[in-house]
């Protein structure tokens, strides 16, 4: 680096950006080797999208066997974003994207209101001014969609959209493991498994939140940290918490001991 004193801010930014992109793919690929946890991987994908692109929140919806969308992962666990994601079962850019298989963009609130009045109201309420929805698919099987929500009006640059779509493709392959990729019933089984894991995670967040008067975001971090530090899958830890085999206060005490939550 010091060999190039004439390097401009712009190339520094580009280099920084490249490093971030590389890091995002490396992080995603780390999730994929060996025995990965679908929940962890999808959460990683949404976080990467939110970090790399000029968007404030990313949400991933998977379809069940009847084509109904369910929330599977979000970049932020904040409960006030969830309504916007959940609404998409009935109307919204993600539902349109899922139905058509095409990227759907609304650049500003007026455009959102024109297409999806209910969704637009909820989105504006939490400060979203633009939305991009990218299709998740494997061959001709539509798996779901990733919604990218921005606080500012405007369309993402094509390079950014391509990057996000590439990350989404990697995740699509991973949701459905290779063995079952050609069998539609097996694909649906995998999707259902991912969706049930998400329900268990939400319940586990509730258990841990109740143990320490935490919000859901903190409860999520406590669960994830406990899983990582014990070399366990997030979905397994969540299942034990919900089954009351692993108690909420134990997860909480660990988070406090390692200093991610105030004691």
């Amino acid at each position: 680096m010091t060999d190039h004193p004439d390097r401009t801010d712009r190339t520094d930014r580009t280099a920084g950006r490249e490093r971030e992109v590389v890091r995002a793919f490396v992080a995603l690929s780390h999730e994929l080797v060996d025995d990965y946890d679908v929940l962890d991987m999808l959460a990683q994908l949404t976080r990467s999208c939110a970090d790399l692109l000029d968007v404030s929140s990313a949400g991933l919806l998977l379809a069940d066997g009847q084509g109904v969308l369910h929330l599977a992962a979000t970049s932020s666990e904040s409960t006030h974003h969830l309504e916007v994601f959940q609404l998409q079962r009935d109307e919204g850019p993600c539902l349109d994207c899922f139905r058509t298989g095409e990227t759907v963009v609304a650049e500003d609130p007026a455009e959102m209101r024109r297409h999806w009045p209910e969704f637009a109201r909820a989105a504006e309420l939490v400060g979203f001014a633009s939305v991009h929805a990218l299709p998740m698919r494997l061959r001709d099987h539509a798996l779901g969609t990733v919604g990218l929500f921005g606080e500012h009006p405007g369309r993402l640059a094509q390079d950014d959209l391509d990057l996000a779509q590439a990350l989404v493709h990697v995740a699509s392959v991973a949701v459905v493991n290779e063995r079952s990729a050609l069998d539609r019933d097996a694909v649906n089984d995998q999707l259902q498994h991912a969706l049930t894991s998400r329900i268990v995670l939400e319940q586990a967040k509730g258990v841990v939140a109740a143990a320490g008067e935490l919000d859901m975001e903190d409860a999520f971090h406590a669960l994830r940290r406990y899983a990582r530090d014990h070399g366990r899958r997030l979905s397994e830890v969540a299942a034990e918490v919900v089954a009351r085999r692993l108690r909420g206060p134990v997860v909480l005490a660990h988070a406090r001991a390692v200093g991610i939550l105030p004691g």
Partner: protein
Amino acid sequence: MTPSLERLSAGLRAAVEGAEPGLEAANELCSACVELLGMDGAAVSMVHEGVSRGTFGASGDDGRRLDEYQFTFGEGPCLDAVSHRRSVLAPDLDAPTETRWPLFSDAALHDGVRAVFALPIMITSACVGALDLFRAEPGGWRGEQAAGAALAARLASQPLLDLLTADLTGDEQSRPDEWATVTAADMDRVEVYQATGILIAQLDVDAAEAAVRLRAHAMATGQTASEVGIAIIERRLFLDRDGGRGDPAGGPA
């Protein structure tokens, strides 16, 4: 030729919605499975707190008897579907490679059944039972049968939820069919999942009971499941261990 998914969906929904809540809805759903999914028998079996409670609804005496073999012998696809929370398919009970349930298979084959499909019935993350489909012809799913069966298993959560809610609230005036109802589909929301988690911790109950408690409170107070869920998450509402409503200031520690 199996019907389109749209026709399957309409037929299965109509069977549940047109029946009295509870047992009759479960029976009608099983009959619709036989008719629409090309099966020869269907049954809904129940599991509560990890313990089997046997066959609930069925398409008829044949479906009921086939389902009950599993409880008689303590083995079968339905019990496996419940313990693994995944669909269990047995496309040919007579195949030499099919060795999973020897006693159940013998009995089912004797009754002329070659293929069995068992799907877990879920309320939030809790497996409360299984939908069991029996067919004389061997072979796997055809056409839209798999998607139709998955939908039927989802619809089967409604009669089980009604039954569990009636169990919880006892024989008071408040029978589920007289309440403003909160459907199983209304429970399918993130805030409801999070709130049931809070109830698991506060009331020290399992996930199924937490969901039933939340639903019973919503119906008794004329609220949606979502509204009750948010109130619990925001610590504005605490439910008592006996199912009533507690005061936030004096709620359980």
